């Protein structure tokens, strides 16, 4: 794997990262070296089982929820080794949004947005809370839709609204990076395009790493793309370059729909 252009002053640097789900098992992610540009959308593409979600989840160490997982290599947020940070601190700096919208069903919309603070037992004043909730909901363009029903359960919202609520929940901590794992795969086309527009808007303030199954989505909204295959990072570069002129024959086959 070679880079066309080295990324200047990357926010994330992944160095020699290998991950296996069990000791001695096959690597789900093999020797990945990659740098992620700040305030950009980076898409990770590849067929099912290529390791793209595993790579994404390693960035805020969510992959450690599998107790037998084995990780080698380093990931740096700026210059800080994330393996040495506490997961609590790390996950406040690197937020995550999942495949299926997953607002907490026992909490109101308001409590969902502020859930990170509640879960961690962080005490803040009511005005601060109100402020965070409003700002986060405005950031995902949900404020006008829900401002009159903030204390209703989040699960009453439509799928697209729920997913935007989950993005707001991730934004409430003002993270630096947001990881999204196929965030639109459970949404209809209209809701999908709203989320896509939102991500393009959000990259002004945040760095976005997005796993997607959907090549046209990657082409539409991402600035940089990774193509993974069987745990290897096959190709990485500017999205426009990759889609118009892939360097690797595997990438080309995937992008032209020959497999995947």
């Amino acid at each position, binding site marked *: 794997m070679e880079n066309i252009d080295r990324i200047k002053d990357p926010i994330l640097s992944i160095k020699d990262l290998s991950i296996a789900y069990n000791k001695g098992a096959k690597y789900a992610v093999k020797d990945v070296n990659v740098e992620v540009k700040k305030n950009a959308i980076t898409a990770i593409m590849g067929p099912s089982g290529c390791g793209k979600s595993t790579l994404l989840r390693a960035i*805020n160490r*969510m992959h450690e*929820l599998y*107790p037998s997982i084995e990780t080698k290599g380093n990931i740096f947020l700026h210059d800080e080794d994330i393996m040495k940070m506490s*997961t*609590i*601190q*790390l*996950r*406040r700096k690197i*937020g*995550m949004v*999942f495949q*299926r919208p*997953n*607002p*907490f*069903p*026992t909490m109101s919309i308001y409590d969902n947005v502020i*859930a*990170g603070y*509640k*879960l*961690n*037992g962080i005490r803040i004043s009511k005005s601060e809370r109100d402020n965070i909730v409003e700002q986060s909901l405005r950031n995902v363009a949900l404020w006008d839709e829900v401002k009159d029903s903030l204390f209703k359960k989040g699960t009453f919202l439509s799928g697209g609204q729920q997913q935007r609520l*989950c993005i707001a*929940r*991730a934004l409430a*901590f003002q993270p630096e990076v947001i990881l999204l794992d196929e965030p639109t795969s459970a949404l209809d086309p209209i809701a999908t395009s709203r989320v896509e527009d939102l991500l393009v808007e959000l990259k002004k303030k945040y760095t976005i790493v997005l796993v997607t199954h959907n090549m046209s989505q990657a082409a539409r909204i991402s600035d940089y793309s990774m193509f993974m295959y069987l745990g290897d990072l096959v190709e990485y570069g500017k999205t426009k370059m990759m889609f118009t002129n892939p360097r690797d024959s595997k990438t080309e086959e995937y992008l032209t729909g020959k497999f995947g």
Partner: protein
Amino acid sequence: MKSDKITKYTLFIASLVILFVSGGMVFSLIGGSIPAFKEFGLQFIFSTEWNPTEDREAYGALPFITGTMFTSILALIICLPLAFATALFIAEYFKRSSLASILSSMVDLLAGIPSIVYGLWGFYTLRPLMIELGWSAQGYGILTSGIILAIMIIPYATSLSAEIISMVPNELKEAAYSLGATRMEVIFNVILPNARSGIIASFILAFGRALGETMAVTMLIGNANVIPKGISGVGNTMASVIANQFGEADGLKLSSLIAIGLLLFLITGIVNAIGKLIIKKLS
């Protein structure tokens, strides 16, 4: 078309049979208890007398109602923390570990042991232990029965609430972890609120089982037809008095036993109804 009709009528008749059997049971319980209620009126429920002497016959259900309630509530109190902790252990904290799977099969094993075996173990092991510890003079009584009942209902409460806990969607736990929550925070803020009604339901069901449990309690309660004096006192439960006395009972005494059976039936029915109501309100 024809097979459709046959299926329809077969299902209909099968359901009718169930209806008739349960209806018939209620009918005969009520019918059998009429002489007792005619003789003693509502006083039957509040009277503590149990006197089978001819011409001075008088029967009351209060000692047995209190005996049943005391033992079952005590069992529930003992069972709650143990079953709850075990369920969390199996279904969340150490799920997928070999220790959890061993524990979970042990729980299933406990649930399958016949009541009489628990009674026997209680009689030969727990009773002497109670005497030795000085908790009970003869080793019989509410406390001994409550402990044995607790051991008997722990498997039900555990496996039901473990199932409920493991049904909390993984995506909710992941959402909480991704917000920096610790394991304890995930358990108390995500798993328990989402599993709450189910966990309450499983403990109510376990309580219902304790109410009707007969054999082991009969062997350990002391079979004294009095209101128990404290938890180390002896007593009798509704189920035990029926099991002990139905063989030699006739006339008014038999009717009184049937009336106790009817009351037990009503109490368990009410407990189950309360449980369902709670679930409805929470969900």
